[in-house]
């Protein structure tokens, strides 16, 4: 019989939709390895970010830049109460950005501007602000971002940013041997199937991570094909590809062998490349997973949605291979893995799906009676373990090599304890963190 687990957790068998929990008050766990809009914006080489907002709303972003040691690429324009009551938000925004640009020691080639919820609610005509700025600073590319977390009907801020940050890419003659990966915080690992397959056809994969100058970044528009692998980056990559007149392949990282094979078929079909030996790849994954099971045994496993966009597929993969997956920490189901939820509902109805933000979790015990392996930093915090895979958004894992990579990371996590208290509060895993 299924057990009800309280307001912040359900069993897989109980679930009826992708919305697992009702909207209630929320708390913010002290786990910050994910990237925010500051981290993402910093990927654009030589770009300067300007945020226009109230003091308290500014704090998280300005100190993100400080934590990255990148305050020289970040400026603030502070909105005050009187701007709202006197209707001067537009003027302060314009004057503030101007002031920053005049005071910077060197004009940056690109400025990413972040107005906020206040601009939206007051109907500030940002188009007019940008037109004015572009007239005054014609040598600068102004990127129209937003920090408006209140907007649920529009694009969420990071998804929008993953598109607009590529808006400066100019039209260019396509180079068929160049493939651009857009919309991801991480470049695929060197041994990922994506790189291996492209290498087999003498194709070069480039992404923003390879660019050290703004000029190099603009050169991404020469790519003959645009690829995206991260769900929140798909929309931006697709729109950019449409604008530049390039084909776009969305190939999200997955833990389902059949889906991996289907994606690789798409890739090789697009470029006319030789087919990999899928049987060997599958066998190699099986071997790696068996080896990991031999190390981890029946230790309880908790997975979170921070570690990978497809935590339920990962849970399914591990359960199918004999691992003792007990909990998955997530606040909703990514529609791309709805089939994984269906499978879990049928085959693992006792699996606990737990929220990460609901109020009772603030005071819930964060220890487990048995040594637990956490896959993801949030799961580590919630279960109080030092044995965890410290990865966000799937890192550079992709394809069958991604499955093997995850299995390896699980072994390493089980064998070597980490300092959870020191690691998980650090912001933006993979970025500089000065704390």
């Amino acid at each position: 019989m299924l057990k009800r687990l309280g307001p912040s957790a359900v069993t897989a068998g109980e679930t009826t939709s992708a919305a697992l929990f009702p909207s209630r008050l929320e708390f913010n766990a002290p786990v910050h390895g994910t990237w925010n809009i500051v981290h993402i914006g910093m990927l654009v080489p030589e770009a300067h970010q300007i945020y226009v907002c109230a003091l308290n709303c500014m704090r998280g972003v300005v100190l993100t830049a400080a934590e990255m040691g990148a305050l020289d690429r970040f400026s603030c324009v502070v909105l005050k109460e009187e701007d709202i009551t006197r209707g001067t938000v537009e003027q302060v925004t314009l004057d503030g950005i101007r002031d920053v640009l005049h005071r910077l020691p060197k004009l940056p080639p690109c400025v990413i501007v972040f107005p906020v919820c206040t601009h939206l609610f007051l109907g500030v005509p940002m188009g007019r602000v940008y037109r004015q700025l572009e007239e005054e600073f014609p040598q600068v590319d102004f990127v129209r971002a937003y920090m408006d977390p209140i907007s649920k009907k529009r694009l969420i801020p990071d998804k929008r940013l993953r598109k607009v940050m590529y808006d400066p890419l100019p039209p260019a003659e396509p180079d068929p041997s160049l493939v651009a990966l857009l919309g991801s915080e991480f470049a695929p690992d060197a041994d990922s199937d994506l790189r291996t397959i492209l290498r087999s056809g003498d194709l070069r994969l480039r992404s923003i991570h390879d660019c050290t100058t703004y000029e190099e970044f603009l050169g991404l528009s020469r790519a003959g094909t645009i690829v995206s692998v991260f769900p929140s980056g798909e929309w931006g990559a697709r729109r950019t590809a449409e604008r530049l007149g390039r084909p776009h392949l969305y190939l999200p990282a997955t833990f389902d062998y059949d889906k991996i094979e289907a994606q690789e078929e798409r890739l090789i079909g697009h470029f006319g490349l030789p087919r990999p030996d899928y049987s060997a790849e599958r066998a190699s994954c099986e071997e790696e997973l068996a080896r990991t099971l031999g190390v981890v045994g029946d230790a309880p496993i908790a997975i979170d949605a921070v570690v990978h966009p497809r935590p339920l597929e990962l849970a399914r993969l591990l359960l199918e291979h004999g691992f003792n997956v007990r909990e998955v920490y997530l606040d909703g189901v990514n529609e791309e893995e709805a089939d994984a939820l269906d499978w879990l509902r049928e085959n693992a109805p006792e699996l606990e799906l737990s929220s990460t933000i609901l109020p009772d979790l603030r005071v819930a015990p964060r220890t487990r009676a048995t040594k637990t392996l956490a896959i993801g930093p949030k799961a580590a915090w919630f279960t109080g373990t030092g044995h965890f895979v410290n990865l966000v958004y799937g890192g550079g894992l992709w394809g069958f090599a991604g499955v093997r990579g995850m299995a390896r990371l699980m072994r390493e996590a089980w064998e070597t304890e980490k300092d959870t208290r020191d690691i998980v509060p650090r912001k933006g895993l993979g970025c500089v963190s000065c704390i």
Partner: protein
Amino acid sequence: MRRTNLIVPTYTGDVSGACSALFELGGMVVIHDPSGCNSTYNTHDETRWYDQDSLIFITGLVERDAILGNDDKLVADVVDAARELSPRFIALCNSPIPFISGTDFAAICRLVERACHIPCFYVRTNAMHDYVVGAGNAFEQVARRFVDEAPVRAGTLNILGATPLDLGVAGSDATLRAFAEDAGFEVVSCWAMGSTLDELARAAEAEVNLVVSATGLKVAQYLRERFGTPYVTGLPVGAFAERLAGDLRRAARDGQCLWPHRDARAQRGRAPWALVGEPIATGSLASAVERELGVDARVLCPLEAHAELIGAADALVEGEEGVAEALRGAEVVVADELYRPIVGEGTRLVALPHQALSGRNGWKSAQDPTRVDVRALLAGQA
């Protein structure tokens, strides 16, 4: 333009100030804001968040509810969580969008209180002021709501305005308590580190109040007005501690309010030493500098502090440019490390982390401000 900070971060805002002030009191603080901005309070400004549970939440406001004025959801969610978690009180904080739409927090507090029978009050905030305002308003609300008349006990005091935002490291409150006891006072309550809500509720028993940061001034003035309790401003730093202790005894004896963090200094012209930050901490340190090193020192306050906290040679300054201008000509500047880019050539910066500016970036080098060795400042080591 005073609104732009080219490279120096902005200070902690009012909402975070309120959360910091109320953190240890067993209440539930609810920030009416979308998920994402003000929830970062705990990331950068709350040293206690990882190790100590406190019921601080956001409502996750979305545009539809804001536009349509769906306050029912806010009330229902707060009541729901309160019933589940049984906090001692509920404090609601505002943010820009509910501020723009004029959400009636007083009425919402009444609805919540009626529904769950837990004291509920609004802390006036809107994310557009700094932490001095938010923490100050939070302390004042606690006093209004929980402190009742009580017979004054001789030789007792409250410490007002103690938060990690100004005191930096855990245990600073213990140093303050030790100072008070050495000065001959029993501590009734410390607002609000290391004290319970019940202890704060007994604040009217105190003979005098020690205001250790600008966040404590508003509640000090309220307690003065309501119970007649005199207050004294200062942090016990170096040689200034002796003066502060003497003023506490004097205030207790004469019932006068005293401002030694400001008045113990010469307050002559443009002093060669400039200290940037919260006015009571920097004023106290400046007083210690004058006493121990024999050099004049002035305070530059970039916060929304009450003008009475600022001496004749001190200044309230606005924004990064305001600080930079006021620093011109200074020989030595004592300020958070993040001010370094705007300290001119030929001026020596002595870095003292201020949590309300550098947040967790300064945690590793944070120190108890009452233990700063003034003589070591000369050697560039705080």
